[in-house]
């Protein structure tokens, strides 16, 4: 059986995951150094990670083929990533966002509750905020399905334009 073309964007994600694992090593060493036990809520990492993967795969599939059709996408993505970094609670806590904005922001950008969910789950014995994560999960799944459909439909013409 020949493998589908999905393998190529997914392989890229795999490469990044490997990076992430490497980056996790110093993180683990810090736990050892400070003799800090990960908290019992750490199992939340699993659903968070699953949702993150769904979202990434969906985006990756759609963008991979679309960027073949529209070369500009490749150029624009760098900028979008930078903007994305600032509208996600990476360098600031979610609590610094006004409460009324949090839900719409989470729906539009599911990375918000995902990123905000890891930290408390690993460090502070807190569950992620399910009121935000729930709707964001829906977005993740929708993105994955839409991304896959877009990929399937656009993949057909890729060799014609590449």
């Amino acid at each position, binding site marked *: 059986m020949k*493998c589908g073309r999905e393998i190529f964007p997914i392989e890229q994600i795999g490469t990044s995951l490997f990076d992430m694992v490497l980056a996790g090593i110093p993180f683990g060493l810090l736990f050892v150094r400070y003799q800090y036990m990960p908290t019992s809520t750490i199992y939340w990492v699993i659903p968070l990670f699953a949702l993150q993967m769904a979202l990434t795969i969906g985006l990756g599939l759609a963008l991979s083929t679309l960027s073949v*059709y*529209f*070369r500009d996408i490749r150029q624009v993505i760098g900028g979008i990533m930078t903007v994305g970094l600032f509208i996600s609670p990476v360098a600031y806590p979610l609590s610094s966002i006004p409460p009324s904005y949090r839900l719409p922001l989470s729906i539009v950008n599911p990375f918000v509750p995902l990123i905000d969910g890891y930290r408390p789950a690993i460090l502070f014995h807190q569950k992620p905020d399910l009121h935000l994560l729930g709707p964001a999960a829906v977005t993740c799944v929708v993105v994955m399905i839409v991304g896959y459909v877009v990929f399937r439909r656009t993949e057909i*013409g890729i*060799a*014609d*334009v590449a």
Partner: protein
Amino acid sequence: MSLDLGALPEGAIRGDRLWKRFRDDDRRWKIGHQVKAKVDQWRHQDESYWRYVLRDVSFEIAPGESVGLVGPNGSGKSTLLKLLTGTMYPYAGTLAVEGRIGALINLSAGIVSDLTGKDNIFLYGSLLGLKRAEVAKKYDQIVEFADLQEAVDRQIKFYSSGMQKRLGFSVACHLDPAILLIDEVLAVGDATFQQRCLNRMQQVVESGTTLVLVSHDLAAVEGTCNRCLWLNDGVLLADGPIRDVLGIYRQWIEEVSEQLQGVKGEIEILKATATDGDRGSPRSDEPMEVRLVVQSDRAYHTTFFLGVSEGPATPIFVLRYNGHLEEGENEVVCMMRHLPLPRGRFYVWVYAKDNRNKQLLPWHPACFFDVIGNRLQRAPRGIIRLSSVQVTGDWTIS
């Protein structure tokens, strides 16, 4: 959609009314342009964008057949192969290809230029769905056939283009494909490798693999395949036994290149014939007479060159003659006592210059002739014959 007559056996190909079209559109990268195109399409004004490259192509290939695919440049041969590999999809029609495909279609397909030759062999194998161990079993054969022992650990980007093609061909035909698709392998390889490719293809066919071979080297196609498809401007013009199809294809090429005739330099050839001296076709080992009617505006001391080729501009042999041309019509006759050619079609090429080395007539085909006689005697495997000259000998062993 066609009716599907059940599953195809392994190694079979069936194309049913295949169409392929491309958009001739240099601004398709622009999103705004795409939006406009969509609007046009919505208003049904879009047809002008499309160029049809394959039109209603239907064929069926049984397992183990060896099929040549010929046609002039841009006729859609490579496109058809890409449909067969699944790289491209047809616009309309159905295509069924059964079994593992080994393909060598374009140099860069399936090859990662940052990896070494060795890594690429394994990568290609796994893209075909082979296990690492299965590829490992074939690995030595692949490297040995490609003759790249000293280069397998080098990155592909530092390979010469011939080396890349060797590797590609070797991988494609050693991983036990059920179907082997080859597009113009012979163009890049050196002479020894070309011959090895031909031999290997022969073996692959004998072992029951289906072969589709695209080449402009008609002799190679003829030697390898027993059936031939002729694509012309996206239309399948002929499908049949190799000799019949190549016969009409060669004739068609000749008609096209006939426009070359009547080439005029300082002098002009009005008529050219090649016969056995008596209006018949020339025969192997018998005399042949080439008769040229030459129109000249004034008198010249001329050197004529007369070459015989299998079609291209490179002659098998050349005859040369110094003579005097009068003003008006002249008849130049060259009598060859023993024609050293096997059965087949050959072309007479002519060139003329005057005694000050000024060109009077460019090198061009003047006519063709069909030789009656025995088929060309085969060279042993692995030996390349430069041209199809046939000499009969009387043998004795004592």
